[in-house]
């Protein structure tokens, strides 16, 4: 990545800067630098090109912990709950998922589970209209669990393959809202045994280390099964993913790359690492 001919202080500082500014985090960065340090000390590493290779492989190894499970439509209906803090792109991601799975021939339905925020139902309804996908919703202020209940019943009755349940944004630090989420999940499970089959945590690539705090709470109390990282069309490199995948060992299903229906791509670890190290 630069004109260094040996592994010196300047090069290590460059490595550190790349990792930190990618939001990999201080602790994980220290670990990566330690790896290089060990290679230099015990394996006589001297070539910078080889150093970059080792760093890339190290990161790929961490990311491999996510496994290769894909978001599949198998049960009838498969119920996917989409959760996360405010403004990360949950509703838009649901639109993108609906477009993708409908194009693959599945019968998709959306549940307007955000009954709190202004015009949340309208926003999802517009997505439904845009894609020709049915949306189950109630009036603003209705009980989110009641919408989930209705949507599950409707999905079964209409032979839907994939039910995407939108939820209101909520900070993971809000105990009451996390409890509400848990209630929605329970209600879904009562209507459709085994559901929700997936609980997708949506994270914003512009977010820093707080993504880890978000993941911890959502994984612990909302039963998160996988991640989607949005807004990777920004300059952010989403380095928090490294720590996230290593800690929770759950798949990163998709990456969001824009605001339109087609701006969703399956997570590609090789491409991600290449972009991070630029």
């Amino acid at each position, binding site marked *: 990545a630069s004109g260094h001919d040996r592994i010196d202080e300047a090069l290590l500082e460059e490595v550190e800067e790349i990792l930190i500014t990618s939001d990999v985090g*201080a602790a994980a960065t220290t670990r990566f630098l330690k790896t290089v340090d060990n290679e230099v000390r015990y394996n006589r590493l001297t070539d910078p090109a080889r150093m970059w290779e080792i760093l890339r492989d190290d990161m790929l190894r961490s990311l491999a912990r996510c496994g290769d499970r894909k978001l599949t439509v198998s049960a009838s209906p498969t119920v996917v709950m989409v959760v996360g803090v405010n403004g990360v792109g949950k509703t838009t991601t649901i639109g993108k998922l609906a477009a993708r799975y409908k194009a693959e021939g599945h019968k998709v339905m959306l549940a307007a589970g955000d009954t709190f925020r202004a*015009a949340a139902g309208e926003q999802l309804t517009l997505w439904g209209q845009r894609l020709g996908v049915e949306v189950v919703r109630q009036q603003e202020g209705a009980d989110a669990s009641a919408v989930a209940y209705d949507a599950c019943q409707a999905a079964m009755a209409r032979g839907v393959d994939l039910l995407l349940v939108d939820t209101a944004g909520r900070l993971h630090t809000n105990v009451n809202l996390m409890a509400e989420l848990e209630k929605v999940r329970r209600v879904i499970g009562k209507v459709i045994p085994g559901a929700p089959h997936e609980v997708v945590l949506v994270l914003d690539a*512009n977010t820093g*280390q707080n993504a880890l*705090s978000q993941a911890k709470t959502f994984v612990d109390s909302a039963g998160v099964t996988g991640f989607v990282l949005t807004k990777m069309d920004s300059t952010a490199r989403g380095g928090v993913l490294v720590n996230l995948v290593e800690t929770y060992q759950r798949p990163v299903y998709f990456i969001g790359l824009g605001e339109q229906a087609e701006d969703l791509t399956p997570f590609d670890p090789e491409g991600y690492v290449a972009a991070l190290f630029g």
Partner: protein
Amino acid sequence: ALSDKLEGVLGRLKGRGVLTEQHISDAMKEVRFALLEADVHFSVVKSFVADVREKCLGQDVLGSMTPGQQVAGIVQRELARLMGGTQSPLNLSPDDLTVVLMVGLQGSGKTTTTAKLANRLKTQGRRVLMVACDLQRPAAVEQLKTLGRSIDVPVLDPQPAGGDPVAAAKEGLAHANAQRYDVVLFDTAGRLHVDGDLMDQLVQVRDAVQPRETLLVADAMTGQEAVNIATSFHAALGLSGIVLSKLEGDARGGAVLSMRQVTGCPVKFVGVGEKIGALETFHPERMAGRILG
């Protein structure tokens, strides 16, 4: 907490000997780690720690019986100073229409903050208008209108032919002047700082309405990109202030230090919840303590 870590690094030396530059270097490592974990930008941390280090090599630290506390105090003070010492209110025109332009990345909280600000100004006795200039996000106009109804503040929804936000903004300004409003707030679509077309469009909106206040609404949990984001928006528009949203969570909020460093703009307000009333003035001391963890 950082103060504990500093006590750990320096406190053990109490009465046991001279505090050396190495000890200060070790202490600075702890400060650096804490700030990076708090999302302060890499280069902002570098220069901040260099400045603090200088101050720590003075006699009040080296000769102190509680050097850990001394260093912690210096760090806290320096950080609070960089946050902008005094509170900075909204710059309101005494006798003309005050134009406020809300800008920022997708999902940062602009629409919600527009309504919060409108409500605050209304309770202060001003005639406020909100103008819906986000013509691209599904139901964005509806969102602002719904919020407007809930606080009884009118929302102009120009809907110009062609859906051009610049035309909508011009119409909004004309209406605000004609109807003699005191303050007009323009909500705009979220956009990436690297989206050339949308940044140009925003510059055109700014030129059309000539804002007294151009506020960057930024998410408190923003990471290292805070520097790029703030720099780009400031270079393009000339920001007059920052509003930090979603601060009631547990994000350390180091992004605010980065943004202040690169723009010099004051943080005018902080969003501390989804409800209309959840807008507070910025407290530099409190923010410094929060960043340090």
